[in-house]
């Protein structure tokens, strides 16, 4: 029998900095063919729609909802049916905001040490692969990849038994396409 996803299977938790009426967030529609799940790192394409991953100067946007969330409602397709509400927009926390976040959408096969920079791949997941500087104690970041966060508490198992990665949001544009 197929396993049900729970509401915390894919999640973005704000450990610090949100919610707040003054928090920097941004809502946008996903681009055609793009499936966003909560916790993914996205960016805007040239039409202002969400795509997965961050390269160059694209602003990181961390998705709070996913396409199937009931307040996004992009998942239901039934003959003769149309959803008046909701709008399909996904709300995201902007990468230049002051947050410590915890996401389920990262490369769980790697280890993460505090202060390691993170990038967002084209699958929308965070990883420290290919962004680690020569020495993360006092060397500058030498990779050409865009940096979207800095590891804080690192990888851990949250209260729901799901592996998550805690990091501070931080944006350093990169020069490479991927």
């Amino acid at each position, binding site marked *: 029998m197929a396993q*049900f*996803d*729970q*509401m915390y*299977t894919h999640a973005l938790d704000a450990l610090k900095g949100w919610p707040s009426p003054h928090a920097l967030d941004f809502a946008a529609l996903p681009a055609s063919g793009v499936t966003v799940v909560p916790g993914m790192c996205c960016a805007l394409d040239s039409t202002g729609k969400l795509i997965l991953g961050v390269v160059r100067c694209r602003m990181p946007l961390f998705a709070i909802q996913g396409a*199937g*969330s*009931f*307040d996004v*409602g992009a998942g*239901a397709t*039934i*003959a*003769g*049916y*149309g*959803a*008046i*509400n*909701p*709008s399909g927009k996904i709300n995201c926390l902007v990468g230049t905001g002051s947050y410590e976040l915890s996401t389920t959408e990262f490369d769980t096969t790697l280890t993460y040490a505090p202060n390691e920079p993170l990038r967002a791949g084209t699958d929308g997941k965070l990883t420290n692969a290919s962004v680690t500087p020569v020495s993360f104690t006092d060397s500058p970041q030498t990779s050409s990849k865009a940096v979207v966060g800095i590891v804080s508490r690192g990888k851990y198992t949250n209260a729901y038994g799901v592996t998550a990665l805690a990091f501070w949001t931080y944006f350093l544009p990169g020069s490479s396409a991927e």
Partner: protein
Amino acid sequence: MANPMTETRLMNETVLARLESPGMQKQAVDGISDFTRLRMREDGIQRRVMPPLEIGNDDLDRAVNDDRPYKVIDMEPDSPAAVSLPYNSLPSNITINNRRYPVFFERVVSVRFTKDVNALRSYTMDIRQVLSDNAIKDMLAQEDNAFLSCVNTVLVGADQVVPFTGATQWVTLSGGLSRVNWMEGKKVLPRTFAHLETHTVLLNNVTVKEIQKWDRLEAGGDLSQDLLLKGFTYTELDNTRIVVTIKRDLVPDDSVFHFADPKFIGKNFMLEDATMAIKREAFMLDYYAYETLGGAIGNAAGVGRVDHT
């Protein structure tokens, strides 16, 4: 005789004093809804076509993987036609199943207005009316935008077949909005398998002038004279409700939307009606309006559109 400007300024000071109560969120449903229904420039289109039903927590359905509100609606089951059989024959079996669809909810919010309270002291107009009017009007406009976007999506496109019904329900008719074309437009909904009649038509305040052009022969009797002398003041025509809107960006010129009775279209739920949140911290005031609603078109056969070119 009392000076009206003095009275208005006094009223503004009273309102300002109430707004300055620290840390209070005001549930403004009664005041806003009564006032707005009387004084809004235009009521919402969706609320006139599909009047909202109030829904509470007890009416909501629960899901395994999402704790956000939603509601599952059953459609009327269809069934194959009856057949005639010779003796010693039994009917075929059909397992009872039914079509359902979800109604999801979302929050609609106005912008958040902020101001230093000192900058409000110089206003002589009724700021409460302006506050509630603008915020509620903006939310209703967003409701209408979502509703008509959904209608257009369900109809697929001009002169395209709607897969659910197998019929074209967004029709282009040349020759303008004549009486003949009005009746041609009324054929759109009955042409589908559902055989629905138009219960409400929606057109904008420019398109309605085409009806006012109908001469005595076209309109029939003194209606033509009345249309000229009194303008279009009718709420019904041809046994059909007429909704005239000023939102020409949503209802284009020469387009007429046709809607069946709301029970044949879908659902429009109001989970939390319009509320004004007002907060003051020291000398900074901010306020915004919000509501929570959910709607869906469950039966594509209940909507239609005619573009009279």
